């Protein structure tokens, strides 16, 4: 397990990343009529980014080194 303080710092870093990913102006970039594998780009982006953030949290919290 990472040291609690490092863990806290990483979570805050991730929070800031999340604020960036799920906010303007970054969202406007994906607000276009494109599709990825048939799925509108904006939808694909939001869910992928969301899953990415959750995966990172899981890694931060569950790491046992």
């Amino acid at each position, binding site marked *: 397990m990472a040291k609690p303080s490092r*863990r*806290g710092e990483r*979570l*805050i870093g*991730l*929070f800031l990343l*999340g*604020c960036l990913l*799920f*906010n*303007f102006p970054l*969202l*406007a970039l994906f*607000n*276009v*009529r494109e*599709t990825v*594998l*048939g*799925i*509108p780009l*904006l*939808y694909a982006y*939001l*869910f992928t980014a*969301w*899953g990415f*953030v*959750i995966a990172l*949290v*899981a890694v931060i*919290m*569950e790491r046992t080194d």
Partner: protein
Amino acid sequence: MLQGWVIVTASFGYIGLLFAIAYYADKRAAAGRSIITPVIYSLSLAVYATAWTFYGSVGRAASDGVGFLPIYIGPTLMILLWWFVLRKVIRISKVNRITSLADFIGSRYGKSALLGGLVTVIAVIGILPYISLQLKAVSSSFQILLQYPEIVMPEKGGAVAILQDTAFYVALFMALFTIAFGTRTLDVSERHEGMVAAIAFEAVVKMIAFLAVGAFVTFGIFGGASDIFGQAAQRPDLARLMTPFGDSQVTHASWVWLTVLSMLAIIFLPRQFQVAVIENVDEKHLSKAVWLFPLYMLAINVFVLPIAFGGRLAFPAGDVDADTFVLTLPMAFHQEGLALLVFIGGLSAATGMVIVETIALSTMVCNDFAMPILLRWKWLDLTRRSNFPALLLDIRRGAIIGVLLLGYFYFRIAGEAYALVSIGLISFAAVAQFAPAAIGGLYWKGGTRLGALAGLSAGFGVWLYTLLLPAFAKSGWLGIGFLESGPFGVELLRPDRLFGLAGLDQITHAMFWSMTANIGAYVLVSLLSRQSAAEHSQATLFVDVFTQTGERGRVWRGTTSASALQTLLGRFLGPARAAELFRAYAQERGHESIDALEADAELVNFAEIQLAGTIGAASAHTMVSTVAQEEPLGIDEVMTIIDEASQVIAYSHKLEEKQQELEQATASLKAANERLQELDRLKDDFVSTVTHELRTPLTSIRAFSEILHDHPDIDPAERHRFLGLIIKESERLTRLINQVLDLAKLESGHAEWQTAEVDLNEIVTDAVSATSQLFKSRGVVVEAHATDRVPKVLADRDRVMQVMLNLLSNAVKFCPEGKGRVQVRLSEEPGGVRIDVQDNGVGIDREHLGVIFEKFRQVGDTLTEKPAGTGLGLAICRQIIDHFGGRLFVQSEPGRGSTFTFTLPRIEPAAAAGLAMGAR
């Protein structure tokens, strides 16, 4: 066709299963083997996903694409900060036995009953729309399902009589169900493990149901998500939803505000506070929840967009409410079983929310609203009653029924004017009003009770005006003119365009104004008002919870007895439980029995905290103070405290002074040490110089003696000359040693002085005549300008004579032979007598003037010129003159001669008298 009894039986079967799970969990908890694991804790947090998520998200997505997502992304972001914020809240709540959000805020601001009550009122009113949303969802889904396989939208709620309204029965049924669920016993810790387990199970059910219908729509009706989106892209009104920012309802501002709103809701919704904080059994569970719970939200939202688009494609006429797509799509495609599963899933989402929300609200209403009022009514004499637990339970049961009925009436009044999500957002905005007081209270010690009251009132007032009243107005319950032209026709006060702020959607508009008013009032009033002692100690307790040891901050002074406290606790918790608690407390402190306990501040605190777990902090404080009369701080005691404080201050001042003294002593010691080292060095120099000066004549003597010894046949004239030299060097040696001894005596103060009145005129005359032979032999003229009009001085005649002789012999030494001229002048000056010895010799270089009075300093090139003296004469002279209080100094011009001058002070009359007396 699905018969009504099938649906009802399935529903009750499902509810029965919930009871079984809760029963099992409670049994396990009672046996000390809690089934609450990190996973169950995470799943219980999913009570966040209600009928709103289950039915409403699809409805929202069908009208503005991704507009439903901030509600889930906000919590995902917030949860990253939970590690700091929620962990602190949990720790504080455990330490203080907080039972609800109202308790938390009231407790933070000095255990204020008023504040707790206000929070309760805001929470109950604010949550009503949210509860009505659940009732609406369940009743309409029931009505739709009853019509299977026809798809008929239910009639408007207001159109049927109450007794024929499904929603009314749903409300009653849920109230009874919740009462049976949450208020069977009075738990001291206010924790309900059975409920948590059931909620976790419900989370799984609603997830399975939603994923099932999602998979059916996506892969059963259509050929995968890309097929749905592909077909939708052909329709302009649907294609628009794929890029919703800009050309749809979703503005940047509303996206951001919804995110912020849901970030606050995930903490301050009463039910979220209940499951996340009150029901938390171990802080460590958080570390799993922070990623499992967002993962749950992600999973339950994956199929929202496909279902929404699928519904729009399947019902192109638009006569089917998008909020019902989740149910109507399986029905339209004749999936009877799936439709029933969806109904059960929706039921589980709604019941989960209603159970936890109403339990949390009933705890608030009981502990923070009813109790403080009841306890103040003296005629009820509640403190004497013994059936308190039963009374508490009754209050809670009443609160649950009341909240659900109010929710129902809200549904009848305003429920039909909005879609599900819009109804829910009104509640979100209400609970967001708790954020400034609660978060401010966590990190800012300066927040005061008045500030919190002002902030909450202002925020809630704006919320009422900008969100709740328009909701009533839109449903026709209030005149619509109030909305369109403002109250009394004042346009500026239009509730949806307050002060002319247009262009924002309703929630964004309301959030901006309410948060501005709330935070502004909280901070401003906090800054302007003062904290009481109790507020201050609670503020410290909350803000510094992680840095505190077990010590409680509160000052308690008063008198009571342990048995009185135990009796009090017994009335609320039951005598057996109270005795058990006290026994455990006594054992912890090493006492044999309860009788040994002293009713000190610590015990009073202990009792208060135990009581707080049941009836809330404010009420517990009131109750304990009925038996433990806390004496108010008198002016005398305040003075004593101030006195003690000033003593401490005085003491520290003293310490400071002492330190300064020490520093000074150190500095002078240091200086003395430096001086000693300097003296030591001087001594070494002196010894080495003396040794050198002694060796020179000794070497000469030895050399001539050796010549005489080794050459017995040396010429007698030569021998005579050598012997003369030996004698001369010996004399010089003797003189040197005498002078060194003399100087040593003078310097050490051991010299013998024979002080008497001395006539300087006589000394000058004597000195000149004593050296006249020397002057004659060198052909130097000496003139003495003596006068007998000078006063006598107090001195040692021999010593002054020594000085005179020294100066004269020096003068003759440096005068040119034959042309030399030395003048001695005696004169009177203010305060004493002055003697000048002037010569016309070589003079002294300016650079040497300062050093000629030092030991062994001889002016001139010592390498080429034979030293003409010992180098000690002037040093001795200065010592002598200094001793008598005079001065010896020299003025000189190179090539034109030097003037050595010394002064001696005249005799003071008193000293003369003293001397005369001593002489007698």
